[in-house]
């Protein structure tokens, strides 16, 4: 049986990858996908912990998080599309009018 720590390590790596993605990607879509990666890292951790506790709550929580992620995708894509329509770009670095 794979020990919980391994899952956690994987989850940590995923989370870190997501973070790095958020920091380095310029396209809104890619940034957003990186966030999804972070969410999945959380899901992985939840499942791993649920298994180690032998408790189903964690697994149900994963479903809820997945739902939330889906909702987030819906809204996020809508916003990104709206912006793309107007500006023909989704480069987040082009959106820096509000500052100071």
């Amino acid at each position, binding site marked *: 049986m794979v020990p919980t720590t391994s899952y956690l390590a994987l989850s940590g790596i995923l989370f870190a990858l997501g*973070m790095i993605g*958020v*920091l380095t990607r*310029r396209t809104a879509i890619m*940034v957003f996908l990186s966030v999804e990666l972070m969410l999945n890292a959380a899901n992985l951790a939840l499942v791993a912990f649920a298994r180690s506790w032998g408790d189903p709550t964690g697994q149900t929580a994963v479903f809820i998080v997945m739902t939330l992620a889906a909702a987030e995708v819906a809204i996020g894509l809508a916003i990104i599309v709206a912006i793309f329509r107007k500006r023909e770009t989704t480069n*987040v*670095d082009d*959106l*820096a*009018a*509000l*500052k*100071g």
Partner: protein
Amino acid sequence: MDSLPALYLLPLLPLLGFTILMVLPRLFPDKTGGWLATGMVGVAFVIAVIRYLNQGAAPAHEVLWAWLPNMALNANLSVGFWLDQLSALMALIITGVGFLIHLYSISYMGHDPKFTRFFAFLNFFVAMMLILVLADSYPLMFVGWEGVGMASYLLIGFWFSGRNSEASDAQVRAASDAEAVSNSNAARKAFIMNRIGDLGFMLGMFLLFKLYGTLSIPELAERVEGAQVAQAGIELACLFLLVGAVGKSGQLPLTTWLPDAMAGPTPVSALIHAATMVTAGVYLVARSHFLYDLAPNASLWVAWAGGLTALYGALSALNQSDIKKILAYSTVSQLGYMFLAVGLHAYSAGVFHLLTHAFFKALLFLAAGAVIHALHEEQDVRKMGGLHKFMPFTHLVSVAGVLAIAGIPVWSGFFSKDAILASAYEQNTALYLIGLGVALLTAFYMGRWYFLVWRGAYRGHGHPHEADTLTKIPLGVLAALATLAGFLNIPTFLGGKHAFDDYIGRAVPLHAHEIPVSTEWLLTVFAVLAGVIGLGWAFLAHRRGALATGPLGAVSSNALYLDALYDGVIGNPSRAVAGALDTVDRGTDDALSGVARNASGPGGLFTLWQSGFVRAYAVSMLLGTAGIIGYWALKTIGSGA
């Protein structure tokens, strides 16, 4: 005793006069204001006389209401008046001479547009002076002390905008404007220099309170004898009081304001800057005799301050050309005599000289005023001369004054000066020699004054006229007093009974002479000789026509450059320091605003940080997270290891 008028009436009456004249000047057209003021002082004089005549052996002490917190022995200090021989005498001088000078001023100031206000101020002065001498505690004395300073300020600056400020002639106007500035400066200088002295006075009071726990004079006098107090404390307190006295009386080193004070109208010079106010320092020392008796060193300081000032004043008077300035330096010098006397614990001699000086110096000033009036505000003695032909009466009284101040026998100055010189001889030869020398110089410069003004040919342009009757009355009375007052205190070796000494001796301790009669005669001869030689010297110079410039030249006419010295050493540096501090203060301000700016500097940094790039925000967010987690991780590892 109940039927006697209360002591508070003495200052109250002139104060009432002041208030009425200030608040309702319109009720007093023409010269009625002057008469009201004169009347007030006259009534005060009558009260003073009544109180003098009914004086018992014990001093009268009339207490009014609580005034200053905790400054009496375990109680609040009250306002109270104290009438003993010393203060009774002073009250008589003040109201008497004050009355005469008021009378004189009605004529002298008759044409001044601010006639009524002048009398209000004079009344104010008399009231404050009476408070000064009648006070039963040092703080109350201080009220009068600063009050007379205020009155002096107001009166020196009486012509604060010049006497022709609205003249149409440009030249006259310019001269008037210059006069305005110098009058104002003189008034301010007098007040500030007095304040320096006042600080000394205050410190003296603080120290006395620390030593004895009270500031009431009777209580102090009682406690001083039995109290176990460090000698240094008493000496220091006496020195502090000396600073106060020196400031008020124009003694070295705070002397330079007094000659400048002559910018005021002449009656003011007579009353305030000759007869009464400036003698307050002498009065203070005499009043505090119970302290000075215990403080030999401080007393010696007093005597030396007096001796040196006497010399300084005499030297400065030698080559003055302003008719009032000569008298002013003479006043400085004569006050020096009084200090010399009281410093040597010869209180009676000092106070006696105070009395005679009040008469003859007031007389001389008033006579000078009459001359100035007659010559249409001309004050330069070099443009006078031969006035005895035009003003015989004034001439006559002036002769009396000159003889009195020169110390020629039978005139009052002879007796009082002689007593001082005798005490000096007995105790301190150096001071005696100074005193004798000053007597000679005094006779000379007063002779110079006399010959330049009254003798020789008239050198001016105007048409001098004799003074009017109203002016003559005070002149006559004062001349009589200046001539005869000496007989109040004929010394024993001349067959007298020391009437004055006996009287004043009930308030201040007497120190009987212990010099042989022969020596005393010798001293008298020396003193008279000094006077005669001085006058003779002046006469000879007059015959040579060499009086216009006195000895010592510019050194004397610039009063030994003391003013310039003060300006250079104190005045200018303190102005510079003020400027520097102002800059520093704006600097502190700038520095603090600078701190504020720097505090908002990070604000600028933060707005830079707020770059608008969403990824930059993500960086700080996620780095923040990473930082926190990293911190926790390190801590966990640290505690685990």
